[in-house]
């Protein structure tokens, strides 16, 4: 569907530790695919560019984003209250390809859980078997969100400080039977985590992996070429994260150059 430009009324906010779910009303025409994002104006003043947020939830005229506070824009957004208005462009970008069969392993690093939770719901609806692996800094970081997601998914948690679940990154949660032959992998998280994952799966495993990348964006529409990631197809060339992605098949990206900008 083509993107919409609209104003949305905030219905509710749920706080989960360092993040908040901001829930807003959407029209009938708004039907985002998992992995697509919305581009939100986060306050005026010195901030001029929209901020991209993955769709976290969408059903029956209601959608939400899960916002982790990292700067002024996210601080503004997560403090919206019932009745406030949001200026939104979206849904934008290419979402996850849901057509693959088999077992689904979703790997989230930190706030990367947002698009994956939405993906997980859609995959489950389609009858897929979904395992959600989630790495975070410490167990209390996201408040009660792990409990909440634990009710929906087969959820496994790793923490950097070992305070909950396995100690280490989300990769520690990959079990030996999760192999590219039998499983499909979907990942969203820090660049370093994605690189580590491609190394773990090795070249042969890349076709089974889809990743959602985070790049700073301006237009979100493919017009400014500001959000590029290195592409395999055009040697030395780039793809636009906002339009060609944010979800890519791992094979499309040049992981050697991806690594350089960690």
């Amino acid at each position, binding site marked *: 569907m*083509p993107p919409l*430009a609209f104003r949305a009324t905030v219905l509710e906010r749920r706080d989960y530790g360092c993040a908040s779910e901001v829930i807003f009303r959407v029209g009938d025409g708004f039907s985002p695919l998992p992995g697509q994002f919305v581009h939100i104006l986060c306050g005026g003043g010195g901030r001029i*560019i929209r901020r991209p947020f993955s769709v976290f939830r969408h059903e029956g005229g209601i959608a939400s984003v899960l916002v982790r506070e990292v700067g002024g824009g996210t601080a503004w957004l997560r403090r919206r209250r019932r009745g406030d208005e949001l200026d939104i462009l979206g849904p934008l970008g290419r979402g996850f390809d849901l057509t693959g069969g088999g077992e689904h392993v979703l790997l989230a690093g930190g706030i990367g859980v947002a698009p994956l939770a939405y993906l997980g719901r859609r995959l489950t609806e389609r009858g897929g078997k979904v395992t959600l692996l989630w790495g975070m800094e410490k167990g209390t970081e996201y408040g009660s969100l792990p409990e909440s997601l634990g009710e929906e998914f087969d959820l496994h948690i790793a923490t950097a400080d070992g305070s909950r679940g396995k100690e280490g990154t989300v990769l520690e949660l990959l079990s030996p039977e999760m192999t590219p032959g039998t499983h499909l992998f979907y990942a969203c998280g820090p660049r370093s985590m994605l690189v580590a994952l491609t190394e773990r799966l090795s070249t042969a495993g890349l076709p089974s992996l889809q990743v959602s990348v985070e790049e700073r*964006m*301006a*237009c979100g529409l493919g017009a400014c*070429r500001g959000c590029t990631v*290195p592409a395999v197809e055009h040697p030395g060339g*780039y793809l636009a994260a906002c339009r060609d992605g944010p979800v890519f098949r791992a094979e499309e990206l040049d992981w050697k150059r991806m690594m350089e900008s960690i």
Partner: protein
Amino acid sequence: MEADDGIDLRVELAGISLKNPFLVCSGTFGNGREMSELVDLNALGGLMTKAVTLEPCPGNPPPRLWETPSGMLNSIGLENKGLERFLAEDLPWLSRFDVPVWVNVAGFSAREYVEWAEAVSRSGLAAAVELNISCPNVEKGGAFFSRRPREAAELVARVREVVDIPLFVKLPPLPGAMRETALAVAEAGADGLSLINTLPAMAVDVERCRPRLGNVTGGLSGPAIHPVAVHAVWEASGAVDLPVIGMGGIWSCSDAVEMLMAGAAAVAVGTLNLVDPRAVPRLAEELAGFMRWKGYRRVPDMVGLLRRRGWG
């Protein structure tokens, strides 16, 4: 676009007719295709294409964007598919719309500029050439020319010889040297000026001690530079009798009127397109409202009005 109440938004620039005085700046609207999902291209006064170079160009390494207070840094670095595909794909597609197209021509040498501008002119599909001699994002992308009035004039004269359509020259703000450069470029045969390109700028991630942009430096655009742009328009329009397209941080109707009153014959919206692809039709409507309220009937009534009122 003459409304019932007699408000006339049309302007003429070097013989080119525009429905309204709002163009979109080079590089901030792609080549129209992506934006056309959200905005009717026929509603634009004019469209300035992304810079195109003779050969395809991959652009600069990411990251290419960074936000600064009321501004944005970019180091796109002329990423484009090259002249051939531009002429075969983009320009014909754009010519389906009823909107004049300024083709933004960048080069890595004078020869490239000339060759390229000639091809654009010959295509018959462009309304004008916009000679980009001020891109801060490539070593030799013209910044060299803009800082030397004489070299700039020589390049303009050479390009002038090979193009049959109006030739606009895009300059950066040149503190203290704006008038001199505008004069040199005008004498060399330019039909108009585009002012301003982004300002050379830079930001640093101090925690990691590395530049915010993969290319280290970039160009600053947005509201932060608007007062600098108004000043450049003021200086250039006072020095030469050429139409000036004012651009730089236009974020509202009154930002645009500032440019007009300072001497711009038309304006172009840049970074704002990246935030609101529908900015131009919205601002055009607001401008009509402003004119109605203040009793201006035609856009030229406002152009250069500051000087006509005795300022400067």
